[in-house]
């Protein structure tokens, strides 16, 4: 968030201040481990996400908001484990004897849920100073916001939260069937050549449904969908590049904030030219 995903974090902090919410960074936070461990006997990899939750509890707070969809998934699943599995909770609390005991008291939410449930689409729409008119954006959820069911921020089969978000900003959401299809995730490490097929399936579908850009929440999806396009442009004549936005960038833009806070220079596909074409950037 502080380096490669500054364009996800900084517009979020600035936007939430305008909306009357102050984000407080957890002190002494650590990497959550990125993925939730799926083995029954593996508790050591739960320590990292649980420590972050303990930090929140220590501050006397009861809610943890995340921006990155990957981290959201890991933290929320670890939280559910601590809430629901007594034996594993006791083992982890005993192991982390230098920490206070924790049993799932903190609520883990994604920022999209905060916008929907705590601010509301109506209030958000009223605060919009630069409606994103004529911007046809396809909402892309990927995997981690919606699966497994117990962590999903919306319907697993037919999510609409990003559609409602885009409409509140005045943009034109473009629904497409591959909006919850995997981008390939960590396969970028072991089989980068396979990623372009994943990316083709997603982006060709968005393009054929009339999208001019994609909005997303995850730095890994952003990387795969961006890098994958570089390969597709070489391999397929019919492929048209598609700019990618983080949802927090569109939020900041629509709220009339200085576009510099969005750090568009870090985005794939130079979205500034699309925004200028739509008179959304001078």
């Amino acid at each position, binding site marked *: 968030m502080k380096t490669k995903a500054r364009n996800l974090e900084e517009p979020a902090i600035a936007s939430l201040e305008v909306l009357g919410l102050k984000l407080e960074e957890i002190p002494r936070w650590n990497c959550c481990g990125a993925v939730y461990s*799926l083995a029954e006997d593996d508790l050591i990899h739960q320590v990292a996400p649980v420590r972050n939750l303990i930090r929140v509890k220590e501050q006397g707070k009861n809610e943890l908001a995340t921006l990155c969809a990957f981290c959201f998934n890991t933290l929320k699943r670890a939280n559910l484990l601590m809430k629901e599995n007594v034996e594993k909770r006791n083992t982890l609390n005993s192991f982390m004897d230098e920490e206070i005991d924790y049993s799932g008291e903190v609520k883990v939410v994604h920022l999209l849920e905060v916008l929907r449930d705590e601010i509301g689409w109506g209030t958000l729409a009223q605060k919009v100073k630069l409606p994103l008119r004529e911007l046809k954006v396809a909402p892309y959820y990927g995997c981690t916001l919606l699966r*497994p069911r117990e962590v999903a921020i919306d319907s697993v089969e037919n999510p609409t939260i990003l559609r409602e978000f885009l409409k509140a900003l005045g943009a034109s959401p473009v629904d497409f069937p591959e909006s919850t299809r*995997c981008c390939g995730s960590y396969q970028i*490490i*072991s089989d980068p050549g396979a990623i372009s097929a994943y990316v083709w*399936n997603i982006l060709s579908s968005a393009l054929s449904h009339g999208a001019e850009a994609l909005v997303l929440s995850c730095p890994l999806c952003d990387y795969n969908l961006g890098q994958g396009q570089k390969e597709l442009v070489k391999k397929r004549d019919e492929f048209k590049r598609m700019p990618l936005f983080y949802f927090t960038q569109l939020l900041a833009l629509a709220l009339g904030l200085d576009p510099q806070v969005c750090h568009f220079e870090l985005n794939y596909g130079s979205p500034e030219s699309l925004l200028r074409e739509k008179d959304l950037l001078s």
Partner: protein
Amino acid sequence: MSVTVSPRRLRGEFVRKVKELSGENLQLCYQCGMCSGVCPAVSNMDLSPRQVIELARLGMQDEIAESKTVWICATCLACTVNCPRGFDLSRLMEAIRLLTLRKNVDHIRPEDISPQERCELPQIAMVSGLRKFTG
């Protein structure tokens, strides 16, 4: 080709270990193929997700070990949320991977990630990839 299915395999160490590590009841699966149908990576796989479950519960560990399927899985959970029996196939895939990784046999070598890739990749790609593919 002939395949021998025996009580020795069905009650063997491999089946016991995958059940223990995954925490899943392999008998839930009735081979409907929904998992294979929704898997975004199935076209790259030699064994389909459905076949992996069937071979796992028959104790066919050699056939599974020769397959690249579990290493192509990206843990997207499309299979898990669509299974009509509530079987969590992502946990079975993880269990099978771990049986190899815990013998100190890594699927990738961190040193094979080029310096340029290390600069460009988001941190979560490195952390998740190394967690899934190394012991």
